[in-house]
């Protein structure tokens, strides 16, 4: 229960990775801390509970990472995915700080999987949490509680009441009842706004009704909108979000990692009308994974169908939902509610266009392409003709939004006039757009949250106790 007449040193808005790192760090620096999480305990931890790894720079192999991953290589990767839409000094600071995170994370309860040489191609760049993100979040909550951080579940931050560039009081609901709290400093770590479909509708129209939100339903952007409405500087394109191809049968929220589908490169993908619309074999899947959400969002009714045959079926990770199977393409079309004659035409045309080519190799760009189609498939093109046939319906799955608040290297939130606020800090998804203005680098979200969470916690505690 929150204490009304107490002035906390630090109030943390949010309950995911970034919030927890800030709360723990501030408490360890001696501050009194209250953390306000809008989800109930069972669903605490935001999108962080769905994660599995973070990306860390390192000069030599260690207990959880193989080989080396230098600052420059990391920076190059970031530059490539963002197309330069980043802030080099904040980015390099984050990258450098990522190499020193393990000790702190371990000390606060996080456990890692031992590095797996070779098998996982991310084993070099990304450290995997033992048990995944929920285990990480559990560990941090235990640590926070042990240190004496006050934790409110089922409590939503409604407004950070700002005056003259500083937060004076904080309106929240505590289990549905309004309360006003006081804190010397505030850390905003409440994630993006992708679960707020009405806000998303402003940019996407009614297509959002066919979007799947991969993570928590609690990231509704209330804190973000509240700050932006009080003269805080925005960063990131509000219309943009990270969208991937998901199994259309995924739940509307919180389906997490398991509803993703890796079948695209080994399939023919058609829309509602039975037409192909993009090169399924453009590049290896991890590099093209994130463009397919947008592609499907642009199709009629925001749906597409991945079709493959018995030869292709064993080549990709199973989805959580069973494939739709049929002995003929017509029967498969009926099951998927597509026009059977049209699907047959599309596949026949595709099969005819496959150039007799090189050896099929699913592990690299193998150059097996079609000829004369619009669009062509440029790799892994192979006739779809070995029954049974398999189909998966696909929808756009939204991971996060890019809009955020502008911060400096002390995690201080900046006002429209470029001046830092006196006592307001931000960490995590809510400020990730400063560094990741576009695209995505696997494991970078948790790195940003951890690095800036710790900075925000440190700075907030220092300021509050001065």
């Amino acid at each position, binding site marked *: 229960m929150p204490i009304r007449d107490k002035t906390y040193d630090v109030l943390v808005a949010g309950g995911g990775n970034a919030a927890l790192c800030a709360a723990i760090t501030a408490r360890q620096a001696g501050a009194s801390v209250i953390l306000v999480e809008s989800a109930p305990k069972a669903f605490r931890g935001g999108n962080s509970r769905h994660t599995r790894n973070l990306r860390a720079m390192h000069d030599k192999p260690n207990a959880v990472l193989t080989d080396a991953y230098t600052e420059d290589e990391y920076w190059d990767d970031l530059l490539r995915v963002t197309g330069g839409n980043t802030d080099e000094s904040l980015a390099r600071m984050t990258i450098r700080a990522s190499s020193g995170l393990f000790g702190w994370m371990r000390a606060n309860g996080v456990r890692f999987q031992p590095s797996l040489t070779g098998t996982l191609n991310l084993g070099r760049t990304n450290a995997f949490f033992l048990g995944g993100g929920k285990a990480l979040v559990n560990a941090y909550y*235990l640590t926070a509680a042990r240190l004496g951080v006050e934790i409110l579940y089922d409590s939503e931050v409604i407004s950070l009441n700002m005056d003259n560039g500083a937060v004076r009081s904080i309106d929240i609901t505590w289990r549905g009842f309004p309360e006003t709290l006081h804190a010397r400093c505030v850390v905003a770590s409440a994630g993006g706004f992708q679960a707020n479909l009405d806000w998303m509708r402003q940019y996407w129209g009614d297509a959002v009704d066919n979007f799947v939100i991969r993570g928590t339903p609690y990231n509704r952007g209330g804190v973000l909108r509240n700050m932006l409405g009080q003269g805080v500087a925005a960063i990131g394109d509000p219309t943009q979000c990270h969208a991937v191809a998901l199994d259309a049968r995924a739940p509307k929220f919180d389906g997490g990692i398991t509803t993703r589908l890796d079948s695209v490169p080994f399939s023919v993908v058609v829309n509602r009308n039975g037409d192909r619309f993009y090169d399924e074999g453009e590049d290896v899947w991890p590099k093209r994974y994130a463009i397919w959400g947008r592609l499907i969002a642009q199709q009629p009714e925001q749906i597409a169908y991945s079709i493959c045959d018995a030869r292709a079926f064993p080549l990709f990770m199973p989805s959580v939902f069973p494939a739709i199977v049929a002995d003929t393409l017509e029967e498969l079309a009926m099951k998927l509610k597509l026009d059977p004659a049209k699907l047959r035409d599309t596949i026949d045309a595709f099969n005819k266009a496959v150039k007799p080519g090189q050896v099929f190799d699913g592990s690299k760009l193998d150059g097996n392409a079609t000829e004369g189609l619009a669009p062509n498939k440029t790799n892994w093109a192979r006739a779809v003709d070995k029954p049974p046939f398999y189909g998966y319906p696909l929808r756009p799955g939204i991971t996060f939004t890019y809009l955020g608040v502008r911060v400096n290297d002390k995690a201080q939130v900046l006002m429209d006039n470029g001046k830092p606020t006196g006592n307001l800090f931000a960490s995590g998804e809510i400020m990730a757009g400063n560094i990741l203005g576009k695209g995505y680098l696997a494991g970078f979200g948790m790195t940003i949250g951890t690095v800036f969470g710790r900075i925000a916690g440190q700075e907030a505690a220092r300021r509050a106790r001065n």
Partner: protein
Amino acid sequence: MRETDAVINARREIEVCNACRYCEGFCAVFPAIEQRRDFTAGDISYLANLCHNCRGCYYACQYAPPHQWGINIPATLAEVRNESYAEYAWPRPLARTFQRNGTLLSLAAALCLALVLFLGIRLNSATNFFGAHGTQPESFYTIIPLPVLQAVGIASFGFSLLALAMGARSFWRDAGPRDKVTPSALGIALWDVLTLKNLGGGGNGCNDNSEAFSMRRRYLHHAMFYGFLLCFAATCTGFVYHSFLGWPAPYPFLSLPVLLGTVGGIGLIAGSVGMVAMRFADDPVPNVARLRGGDVALLLLLALIAVTGLVLLAVRATGAMGLAMSIHLGFILAFFLMLPYSKMVHGVYRTAALLRRAVERTMKPLGGE
């Protein structure tokens, strides 16, 4: 293994895990899942018996209840595991013993106790049964003659071993053909059994009733398991002393059999009583409440065997020896008879599952990253 509701539900959950794989660092179950894409009922029984019930994967699961998918691997696999005990029970009609196992085990213990006491008192004169025999050689056998003791012991234990072996054979076949068992696989499996490597979520410990990890269960199981082995070693040494060296029981306090038995008995009591206590303090959600009776009855039977053994040691020179020995032997008889029809079978199937896992360890996981 039949396609029961528990198997069907386990398959659904396991297929979620196979698409997720976040728990692969916890134990042997997840790497074994990753090597498969289709799961026969036999596969699921294998995975169920491979699970050590540490609950790590339940607390770590983003799809655990109240998520609508309600993924709860420890409870789901415990259901299948219990059904698998019935499935492989030999002779077949005794499969039913796993239905109300706690009640049955308690009844068996009471009956054996009554039987041994009744016969002990009926077939002995009161002066003999209640007389003080001091520590003269063969004092125990004045109450129950050695040949009777040996015959009943060997017959009941021997039958149980046969039944366990038949069960293990059914289990092994059910999970489908596998590569040859190599000495190195045997070594790995033995190490896994002796260290309980998989009980404790990748080395951090179990989740007893919260997200916090603890080694308590692993240590208690070790106390119980190694206590049990020491008691068994005590019996074997006694047998060697008597049959080969011509030294009949009872043995002095500082003799090998008595020392082994005493230390083992204390371990057995500490381990089993501790595990009973934990069984009541556990988080109920990743558990199957219905199975608690059988688990607790077995743990208490083990504790009672050890307690009565220690009591017998204390009173063996007095007139209470006959009574104490009859009670001790009554519990042991029940244990021998119920060995293949109690939770004790988990040791056999889990060992077999670990061996299978060790055999297939070099297979590659299916699917990409």
